């Protein structure tokens, strides 16, 4: 039986669902890069006051702002997809006999994110 196997090259371009998946995956590049930005800031902090303040000043550069803008969009998309998929990564959650709907879990996750983000902003603002 001579079967024919179709090639996989370019598979992700053939369906919008896959494109969005690749976008979600692409967020990882910016999360890694951002961690390195923070690591660099930590290094400058350990070097002393003028070096740390130089790092702070560099954050105001156009390159930095552009990077952060793109990173923000992609990490927001990562957060969105992460929370939406969360119920699927856990067993059914039950309170007694009542099964907690997926929507509740997602809403709870988003709410937690908003609360924690708000707390973080206030903490930094009052720092």
């Amino acid at each position, binding site marked *: 039986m001579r079967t024919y196997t179709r090639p996989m090259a370019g598979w992700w371009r053939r369906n919008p669902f896959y494109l969005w998946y690749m976008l979600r995956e692409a967020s990882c590049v910016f999360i890694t890069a951002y961690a390195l930005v923070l690591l660099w800031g930590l290094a400058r902090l350990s070097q002393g006051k003028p070096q740390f303040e130089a790092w702070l000043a560099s954050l105001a550069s156009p390159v930095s702002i552009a990077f952060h803008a793109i990173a923000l969009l992609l990490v927001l998309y990562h957060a969105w997809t*992460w929370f939406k998929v969360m119920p699927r990564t856990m067993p059914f959650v039950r309170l007694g006999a009542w099964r907690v709907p997926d929507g509740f879990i997602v809403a709870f996750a988003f709410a937690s994110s908003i609360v924690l983000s708000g707390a973080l902003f206030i903490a930094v603002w009052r720092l």
Partner: protein
Amino acid sequence: MAALKRSNKPIFWSLFGAGGMLSALIGPMLILITGIALPLGMVNFSYERAVAFAQNGFGKAAILLVISLFLFHGVHRMYHCVHDFGVHVGPGLKAAFHGFAALGTLAAGWLLLSIGG
């Protein structure tokens, strides 16, 4: 069926998951702070306050967790991305990606120790 060897994925997946959760919860706000709020002067980040935070036990843990988990999350996904593009991935590439995250973690830990407190 090929030999059903137990995979070591659970280790890396756990780190990936923790990093993914942390970055989903506070990633956007952190980026907003360093990328937009700071340059616009909406928040102030004095050196003295930053050092005090880094010298504090809680501060050290927070900084280390963010840097380390973001790195482990990022590299795990990057490794899978390379595979998704059809590039053959092997243990060498896996070690390179995760080794990079481990190095970043060690660097962060060492810097935090050197800041003292």
